[in-house]
């Protein structure tokens, strides 16, 4: 576990203790409620995880590297944003990947587009987001995130 997760765990446990002391009955009642909500999501979360593994095998990091390093910047950026949207790879894989490309002289725009959609736009998490927040919310949030990811990428290209 990374330090942030660990400290979050610590804080959460302390707060749970406080909640229990303050209002035991309400805490247990709330746990029941939360259990219902979480068990509704669990099936989708397991599906998401299995799907991530599937997509990662279908589009391995080597392929992503090829896309990001392609010579046509506009196409590369859009494809990178799409690939970032449908994959969900951990940051400790994504940053070195983009880093090595930039070091090798590739443009940063596709790299940034990829990094941003990677985390902000979730095609694999879409079914769960839709289930919990509705189709309109999920579509709007992901769509706008995609557009902004491209804007951020272009902005980075202009500034740096």
């Amino acid at each position, binding site marked *: 576990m990374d330090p942030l997760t660990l400290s979050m765990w610590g804080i959460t446990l302390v707060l749970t203790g406080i*909640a229990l002391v303050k209002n035991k009955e309400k805490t247990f009642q709330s*746990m029941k409620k939360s259990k219902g*909500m979480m068990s509704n999501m669990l099936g989708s979360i397991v599906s998401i995880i299995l799907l991530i593994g599937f997509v990662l095998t279908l589009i391995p990091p080597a392929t992503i590297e090829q896309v990001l390093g392609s010579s046509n910047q506009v196409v590369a950026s859009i494809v990178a944003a799409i690939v970032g949207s449908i994959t969900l790879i951990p940051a400790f894989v994504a940053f070195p990947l983009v880093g090595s490309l930039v070091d090798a002289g590739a443009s940063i725009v596709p790299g940034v587009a990829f990094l941003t959609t990677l985390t902000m736009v979730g095609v694999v998490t879409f079914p769960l987001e839709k289930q919990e927040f509705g189709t309109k919310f999920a579509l709007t949030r992901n769509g706008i995130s995609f557009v902004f990811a491209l804007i951020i990428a272009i902005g980075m290209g202009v500034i740096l």
Partner: protein
Amino acid sequence: MKILNFLKQNKFLSLVLLAYLVSFILQPQFATQAFGNSSYYFIEMIQIMPMIFLLTVVIDVLIPKKVIIKHLGEGSGFKGSILALVLGSISAGPIYAAFPVSKLLLKKGASIGNIVIILSAWAVVKVPMLANEVKFLGAEFMGTRWILTVISIFMMGTIVSTIVKKEDLPSGESSPELVVINQSYCVGCSLCENMGPNLFEMIDGKATVKQQPLVPKQMAAVKNIAKKCPVNAILVPDNASQLPEGVA
């Protein structure tokens, strides 16, 4: 039959499992590798989700609705956006871990714009991720991307909240003021029918509510009766929403 029903209710899971099955038949190696690739995320989920569970409980118990409305609600303004950004940035876990917390905050009065900020910040601008970014891409790269991202996140919050209104969100949990009887708990003692013959009736040995929705006066009577139910099978709206799908 039970399995078939389960798969019907979990279409997403069924599709993924089908994809695995097909690939396993055609290319067993691919399926094994895909499953292997998932293992990292399974570990991550096991580390995070119990904490998210406790976190939603803590927020629910310790933070009154009033406070959430004031600091994250429609009228919370720029201060609310900053708070949402900080909340998202200091949390741990993948974006799906943000869903239960966001949903609860939304239910307790947070605005849609601020929920978008929390979700986006949760996904993108986390502290350990920033450190990682500095290591591989340099501080200038990280700093510029952070500033641009934060500006974007704020704008996204505003844009999404003008397009999506609270009415567009699934109401499922909060709005229907219906009394639910947990059929698997009900032992058919008919106590509720005796106490409120115009409210409850027994059908096939299980209690059912005669007519819904109830007027407030009836609701009060039902609440009283619900307390007397020996197996707590009568769920009045406050706790009726806790029911997982399919129980009612």
